[in-house]
C-alpha cells in the first residue's frame, strides 16, 4: 500500500491562474481532508469530503473548491490564484464508514504550490 499519494509534488503557477491538485487516499479509506500549510505555520484545514460531498469547511474563500470521486480520490481546485496561496497543500485520508468514530488520519507528502 503506497499510502496517501498526491500529485503533482511541485507546481508553479502565475497569479490569476487556476490549479488542480490531486489526492489518492490510503487503501480502505473513504474520507479525504485538505490542509494548507504556509511556510513556518501549522497545517490549516480547508475542507473535508465524505461520500462525494463536502462535509466540513474551514475559513477559506469560495475560490477553493473540491471534489471527491466514487473511488474516494479527491481534487482540490483553486481559482484566481493569489501570491498568498503559495503553500504546501496536504491531503489526509481516514476511514469513517457509517459510524461516528473514525480511524487515524494519514497524510500525504503534499504538493508545493508556488504562485508567481
Amino acid at each position: 500500500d503506497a499510502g496517501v499519494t498526491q500529485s503533482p509534488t511541485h507546481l508553479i503557477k502565475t497569479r490569476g491562474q487556476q490549479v488542480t491538485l490531486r489526492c489518492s487516499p490510503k487503501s480502505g479509506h473513504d474520507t479525504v481532508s485538505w490542509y494548507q500549510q504556509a511556510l513556518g505555520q501549522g497545517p490549516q484545514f480547508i475542507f473535508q469530503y465524505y461520500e462525494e460531498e463536502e462535509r466540513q469547511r474551514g475559513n477559506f474563500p469560495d475560490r477553493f473548491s473540491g471534489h471527491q470521486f466514487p473511488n474516494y480520490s479527491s481534487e482540490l481546485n483553486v481559482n484566481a490564484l493569489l501570491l498568498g496561496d503559495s503553500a504546501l497543500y496536504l491531503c489526509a485520508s481516514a476511514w469513517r464508514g457509517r459510524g461516528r468514530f473514525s480511524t487515524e488520519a494519514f497524510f500525504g507528502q503534499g504538493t508545493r504550490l508556488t504562485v508567481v
Partner: protein
Amino acid sequence: AQRVTQPEKLLSVFKGAPVELKCNYSYSGSPELFWYVQYSRQRLQLLLRHISRESIKGFTADLNKGETSFHLKKPFAQEEDSAMYYCALSPNSGGSNYKLTFGKGTLLTVNP
C-alpha cells in the same frame, strides 16, 4: 473558535536530557488532542492521542483540562527524536478524521 498554541518555535536539548514540548489550547467543549510529528523529509504522522493514553517511542502526554494544556514529555531524549512536532485539536470525539486545528509547531533538536 478553537486555537492551539505552541509557545516554543525551537527547542534544543542534549541526548539523554528530559524534554517537554508545550501545548496549550482554547476550546469551549471537550476536544480531542493529538501530537503529530514530522521527521526530516518524511510526511506528517500521528505520534499519540490523548484518548489512547499510550506511550509512543517513550513520549507521553497528559491532557490537563484545568490548565487547557497537553504537553508532550520524554524523560531521556534521543538523537532520532529530532523533528518538527505539532500539537492538534479536534472538536469531535470521533477521531482524528475530523477537522484538525494545528499549532505552529516546535522544532526539536537533540544534540549528541
